[in-house]
């Protein structure tokens, strides 16, 4: 009887170089897949859809007292008795911080999943990078790049990822400014308090975060039975269960309690929390995040 879950690649906990090479070899494939998934989403991507600083005409509206006289469009106002102001569509670039958890625990892939969690996280992040670059947003990877705006944002991010030898498990998020969006793709299996403490700086800065939890179905359903020894891929800790099936109920309760707590915390902050299972399609999560980002922070934000 084979095992249910496995680490997708033979990665030692400290072997950063191997990780880097692996990631480099993985990225082009992921990029192609990210483009393919993104193409299904882009049809719904219609600019900023609000007035603001920009070059394109957005609307005429009646002048209200106190506004700058310079904003009055005299050509339009001359046609009747009212005074009109020309609004332009908001086209100011937005900074979106993208980050995917690349820790060893993300390498896990169970039998019923189609890809490993890391693969899914990178696909999601690169797809978002592609999406955002095309619409002219500034993207950044905390601890890896500063915000930049480029048409080929995804490629650049990928090459940066491939070149980086080691990435900290939890990057420093203090460089994130106000009005930025932060997209964090991880399995969020660490204790909830640690995750909250890590993200607290983002919340204090006033930036909006979108948490995407990539979960393997085996982690959720716990299909193990019999005498089983469990190994933590990050720490190497081992636990041996005599009758694993007896643990399943309590484990599932704890697992979902963690998720619910995190999601509730995000909701309180006005953030979104999205769960994506590796046996489902990546585009599901992409659509969720997309909706969460365009909903101005009040619309349907992911699962919560």
């Amino acid at each position: 009887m084979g095992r249910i879950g496995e680490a997708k690649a033979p990665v030692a906990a400290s072997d950063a170089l191997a990780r880097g090479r692996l990631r480099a070899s993985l990225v082009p494939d992921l990029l192609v897949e990210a483009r393919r998934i993104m193409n299904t989403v882009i049809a719904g991507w219609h600019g900023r859809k609000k007035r603001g600083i920009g070059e394109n005409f957005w609307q005429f509206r009646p002048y209200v007292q106190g506004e700058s006289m310079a904003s009055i469009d005299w050509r339009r106002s001359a046609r009747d008795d009212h005074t009109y102001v020309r609004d332009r569509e908001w086209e100011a670039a937005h900074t979106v911080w993208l980050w995917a958890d690349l820790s060893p625990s993300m390498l896990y892939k169970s039998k019923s999943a189609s890809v490993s969690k890391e693969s899914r996280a990178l696909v999601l992040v690169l797809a978002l990078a592609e999406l955002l670059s095309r619409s002219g947003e500034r993207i950044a990877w905390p601890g890896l790049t500063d915000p930049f705006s480029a048409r080929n944002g995804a490629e650049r991010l990928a090459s940066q990822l491939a070149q980086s030898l080691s990435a900290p498990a939890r990057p420093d998020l203090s460089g994130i400014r106000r009005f930025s969006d932060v997209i964090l793709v991880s399995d969020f299996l660490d204790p909830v308090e640690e995750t909250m403490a890590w993200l607290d700086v983002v919340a204090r800065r006033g930036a909006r975060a979108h948490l995407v939890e990539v979960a393997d179905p085996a982690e959720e359903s716990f299909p193990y039975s019999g005498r089983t020894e469990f190994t933590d891929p990050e720490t190497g800790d081992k636990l041996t269960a005599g009758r694993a099936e007896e643990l399943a109920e309590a484990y599932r309760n704890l697992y979902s309690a963690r998720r619910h707590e995190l999601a509730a915390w995000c909701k309180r902050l006005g953030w979104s929390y999205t769960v994506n299972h590796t046996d489902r399609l990546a585009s599901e999560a992409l659509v969720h995040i997309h909706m969460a980002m365009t909903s101005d922070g009040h619309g349907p934000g992911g699962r919560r």
Partner: protein
Amino acid sequence: MSWLSFGFPAVLWGLLALPVIWWLLRLTPPKPQTEVFPPLKILAQVFKKEETPHRSPWWLTLLRLVMAALVVLALAEPIYNPRQPVATSSSALALVIDNGWSSAPDWKLRVATAERLIKNAEAKDAPIILAFTAEKANAQIGPYSAREARERLNAAVPRPIPTDRPEVYARVGAALNDLPGATVAVLGDGLATPDDQQSFASLFGQQTGNVIWVQPDSISTVAMTAADNQVDRFSITAIRAPGNPAPAQVTAGVFDDKARRIGDAAMTFRPGESQATGDIIVPFELRNDFSWIALDGQAQAGAVRVLDENAKRRRVGLLSQTPVDQSRLLLSPLYYIRRALEPFADLVEPPSPDLIEAIPQLLAQKPAVIVMGDVGTVPESVRAQLITWMENGGTLVRFASSRLITAGNDAELLPVSLRLGERSLGGSLSWTEPQPVAQFPSTGPFADLSPPSDVTVTRQVLAEPTPDLVDKTWAVLADGTPLVTADRRGKGMVVLFHIAPQATWSNLPISGSFVEMLRRIVQLSRNQGAVGARPDVAAASLAPYRMIGSDGVLTPPSGETRPLLVGGAKAPAVTLDNPPGMYGTEEGIYAHNLLQADATLAPIERPAISVPVADERYALDESRDMKAPLLAAAAALLLADSLIVLWLGGMFRRRPRAAHATTAMLALFVLASSFAATVPDARAQDSKPGDIEAVEAISKTRIAYVLTGVANTDSISRAGLTGLTQFLIEKTALEPGEPAGVDIAKDELAFYPLIYWPIDPDAPMPSEQAIGRIDQYMKEGGTVLFDTRDQFSNGLGADSTSPATQRLRDILSNLNVPPLEPVPSDHVLTKAFFILPEFPGRFNGSPLWVEASLDAENTQGRPVRTGDGVSPIMITANDFAGAWAIDDSGAPLLPTVPSDPMQRVLALRAGVNIMMYMLTGNYKSDQVHVPALLERLGQ
């Protein structure tokens, strides 16, 4: 340890290693399945609550320890129950073994004991004399070498016959004379025989060295000594060894000739008693099927008893001088007797009614009983034969009749002397009342019958009052006159019923008591035809048929069995040539049983012997090597351990969903199979389907019409019969159901009193079978109303026929049509409900043809002719259905020709008359005479 010894006791020290093994086993848990699991931190929180079984469960450890202990024990080569040797002399060993019927259950013990003795003798190289007491007198006894003796011992079998000790012991004693100082081992069956003293004297001569006396500890044998078919029960007697203080119960099973168990009897031995009796109270008919009786749990020949003809059905001869008149069966003198006897007796009737021929013919059948229905005088030429038959046990039953009265007294063939003339009780010229039957006398065989309360006797023959009349009387009337008398005649008897065997003199022959009385008489009788019981033949040689084996099982005879000679002065003996069992053929069985009625099972007594005697017991030589079973047990435990380890490793739960699916599939399968067992409709096996339709068709009277296949005609028929039904409901008490259209080729016709058949030349000609069915229907009492509907379409010429008439002729040519006539004016059809001179339909003028009532007579000018039966056929051309036909609103559908409303009413009335005629027959023709009858009665 006397029952257990070890080949290598030192190996048992290995058991000390068990604690070490225990300590080791506790340390090694089974290897777990390894799994990578990222959310280990979450899982770790769960683990805090669970006590991790780091060690194997205690019972698994125990299992493994037992396994180890078994292996250690097996290596020590344990031997179970080694027996101590018995001292035998070195000169010679004489083994005298009883292999009679009672040794069969524990024969193996005897063989094992004998083998031990042979082994001892072999060790001392002594010759062995081996003799069995139930073998043939000339069987070899040795001396043999040990190997030969062992072969002969193993070839010997217990026999289902008694032992013959004197003969065999004498031979052994003679043989021992040449072998001084020999050991004599007596392996007895524990039962005493009459000649024991003498036999032992001949066995233990002066030369005997010592004696080994082996007898069973107790005699557990139970044997059956008698099985009697009594009047109302079957009683069985069983014996056991005397002096047994404990009560005991044995069950006997009764089997028929197909070895089916058809009865049981329980017998209880009271404390200290050696005989027990049990009854099987089953109906007489069932008792006749008894073929043999066996005691449960006794696998020996003495516990089986075969039964023969003496217990079986009797043959009863019936004699009557009146030839049987089939049309007046109830007045036949033998009718009630035959009906009463048939269930429990084989009835024999002579082909010839002439007594001179009939009585010898009957006697040749050797009946147990001869019943004379109305025989008066027995012809002189056969009288002697009849009396001889009676003297030999025949039972003659006679009935009073006018012939008997005219024949006068007959001292030999009547039990009492009769007064001439009969006595008539009741009637217009007598003061006396018909007499009921009094309580049956307690001396007769009817004593336990309760007297019938509803039986009265109006005529009887009277007996001359003699002093012994009371003794001969079996049944009396309330005034003390005898009803049934009987007297012995040698082994047989003669019984006289003082009434006639028909119901004319008394209603006794039609009462249940009559059956009971005849049954008692028949049970008292004995079959005269048992094979071999014929006195004129000295001895008959009967081939063996079924033998009782030594294990109490009935088997086909072996080649050794000789034919049995029976019929001599004394009963044949049970020998090896004639073992117990059934002899004869299937038709006639002679039961050759092992034990006589006076047999006992007395225990043998040890004679006074001058030489040393060693008491020994029968026992199996059980020194058994235990190594292999112990190793097998260890291997089985190892297998169990492997399964348990796999189970603990989760092997059987790795896929709970699959398991659930399997369980669900299994449950579904079980469910489906249970459904499959019940779902097939029981009606599928219904040999006569269509019950629902039949019930529907007969729950209401329905008028039927023939579906011709032409839609127009059929709808008119239906509408017409609906109209008639409406009219019937309005005018008469008859409320028919919906008209029924019948397909004469398929549908059951018997449900309908009348079938209306409109002849349509366009319709296909019905098949031969369909017309055959119509013919059958008409024969069984149904009526078909043919309507050609062509009154005005016929040509003017006399010989011109319309197509419909031609078709009718074609149809009728295949039917058995009685002679027809137009309805005569005094026919009951004209007066069945309405008074009708004619029967118009849509057309008027055509006569209604019915069966000609040829033998009807109307001589006195009555309004209706008399006559039986209902015409099976009616033919008209007036188109009844057309006139009756109404639509849904009740309005007439078709005009009458000529258009006259009264004609339609008359047509409906004609229909009512036809229906009434169908349903009441000639009742109305009788009814019209009621005024005349009343007038004649003067009211």
